[in-house]
């Protein structure tokens, strides 16, 4: 016969039907004669009825935007989010939840192949889901450092300051392959970035060195938003999770950044002998209209951009809208390319080789080829 103390300790297990048959029988005999235990047993049985599987409802990322906007309408913020930081804020948020939040321990080690276009041909590098987040953490760290925040690579072996160099250094210097534990530092840093640019955003002159070129802060934040989305898709693909494109107005800003960067990339490729020679070097005075290509992006978030074809190479810096270069103009239009927004982004991410991009083309074939290759060359690891 079990004593009262033991029988009482069994009540929880009994209520859950998690005892042996003998114990269950002993508890039930005891309940017939012990009022306090019978009361507790009844309460615990009732409580079992309240146990439910947590509903795994994934929140629609669009709800975040709607809720935040409705709050900010009711009480305008004293420190608003700069509109160029909104795409990064939204992309980091939806990568974190629902995507990363729903990823099981084992899936963090699912293989992912990072792909990009190295200027001449497609390139790739194998990593894991956790490795991708480590990559985002390391490269977002470029912005953090420029803002005076902690470098996530601090205390690790110094590598080169390029996105790839930093990522390789992070991976190499970790004693173990990255695990899900990388999620928290990545998310904390992304929150820190959004917060810090809200305060410093207006001081427009800040630029972010990428090791070899620089981007103004607001463009760097758009670049990081684009990378966040592209790598979220890599992860979603690896764990078989549906993933939507960014909100149209965010997508539009990302495409706009790519379009603004194209002339300088094109010029750099030309100097490296990877693109056809400029036609206008001696014919068009600086600042005057030169040849241009009309880039038409279809679908929501799309639009039209005129790409200057004969802008000069800019030394080690991908600054845009340089007043010394030939200005893109409608009169100088020599070609017209039309792409679907998603296809253009795949191209700019280096996920589609430029020769294979599904683009409607009209006009100067060489100019079109140069621009498509330049778009692919925007990508990097």
């Amino acid at each position, binding site marked *: 016969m079990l004593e009262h103390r033991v029988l009482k300790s069994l009540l929880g*297990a009994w209520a859950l039907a*998690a*005892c042996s048959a003998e114990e269950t029988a002993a508890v039930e005999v005891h309940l017939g004669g012990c009022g306090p235990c019978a009361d507790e047993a009844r309460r615990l049985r009732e409580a079992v009825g309240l146990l439910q599987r947590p509903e795994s*409802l994934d929140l629609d990322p669009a709800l975040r935007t709607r809720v935040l906007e409705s709050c900010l309408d009711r*009480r305008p913020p004293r420190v608003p989010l700069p509109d160029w930081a909104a795409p990064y804020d939204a992309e980091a948020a939806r990568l974190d939840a629902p995507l990363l939040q729903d990823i099981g321990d084992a899936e963090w080690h699912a293989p992912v192949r990072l792909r990009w276009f190295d200027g001449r041909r497609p390139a790739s590098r194998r990593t894991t889901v956790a490795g991708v987040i480590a990559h985002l953490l390391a490269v977002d760290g470029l912005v953090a450092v420029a803002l005076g925040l902690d470098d996530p690579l601090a205390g690790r072996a110094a590598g080169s300051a390029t996105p790839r160099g930093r990522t390789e250094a992070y991976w190499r210097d970790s004693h173990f392959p990255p695990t899900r534990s990388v999620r928290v530092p990545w998310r904390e840093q992304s929150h820190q970035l959004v917060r810090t640019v809200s305060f410093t955003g207006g001081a427009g002159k800040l630029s972010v060195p990428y090791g070899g070129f620089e981007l103004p802060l607001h463009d760097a934040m758009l670049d990081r938003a684009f990378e966040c989305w592209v790598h979220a898709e890599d992860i979603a693909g690896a764990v078989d999770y549906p993933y939507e494109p960014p909100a149209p107005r965010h997508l539009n800003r990302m495409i706009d950044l790519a379009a603004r960067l194209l002339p300088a990339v094109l010029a750099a490729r030309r100097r490296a002998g990877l693109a056809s020679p400029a036609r206008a070097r001696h014919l068009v005075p600086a600042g005057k209209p030169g040849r241009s290509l009309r880039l038409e992006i279809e679908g929501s978030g799309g639009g039209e951009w005129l790409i200057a074809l004969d802008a000069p190479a800019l030394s080690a810096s991908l600054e845009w809208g340089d007043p010394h270069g030939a200005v893109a103009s409608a009169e100088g239009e020599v070609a017209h390319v039309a792409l679907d927004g998603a296809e253009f982004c795949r191209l700019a991410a280096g996920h589609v080789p430029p020769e294979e991009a599904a683009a409607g083309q009209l006009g100067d074939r060489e100019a079109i080829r140069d621009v498509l290759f330049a778009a692919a060359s925007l990508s990097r690891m």
Partner: protein
Amino acid sequence: MAKEDAPPRWDRRMQQRLTHGEAAALGECYDRFASLVHGLAHRVLGDEEAADGITREVFAHVWQNPEAYDPKQGPLRSWVAMLTHRLAVQRLRATETAALARDARGTPEELEHKVRHASVTARADYIVTSMPAPLRAALERAYFQRRDYRQTATDLGITEDEARRRLRLGLQLLSTAYDTDPSEPDAAPDEPGAA
């Protein structure tokens, strides 16, 4: 599963930032609590759109009245859960009352019963997500994975005594979901860990 309760320092800091009118703080607050808020609202109302609406109301309240949170009373998480619970139960009562008036089906007692049931269920959810992780883990093994307490002990690497203790304590905590005066169904839920 929900995260552990935030450290009080984070809570106080968040309150200051919200009061200061930092939009980025509102975003962080949403990122931390939105799934809790939406989940509780959905448990009470059983409807996606209504849960979206409650989510909007809760964050609007937090954003417009951050000073109403008193860190001495407990974690921000509990305050947000309490707000959600109150607004969702209010909404349920309002829609059910309107339906009762319109269709003249059911009785006020049935309405009360339904509201109370939804309220207790949502409170139980919150208790489960907020209880200490070891208790939750034991309940999950025993209930959802149908492990007996000896297997639960082995799974969790604890003694059989400890497994029995955790199962009992977990259920005791959960049973407090019923502990609200039925005449005040809108009352604040208990806040485990808020003491």
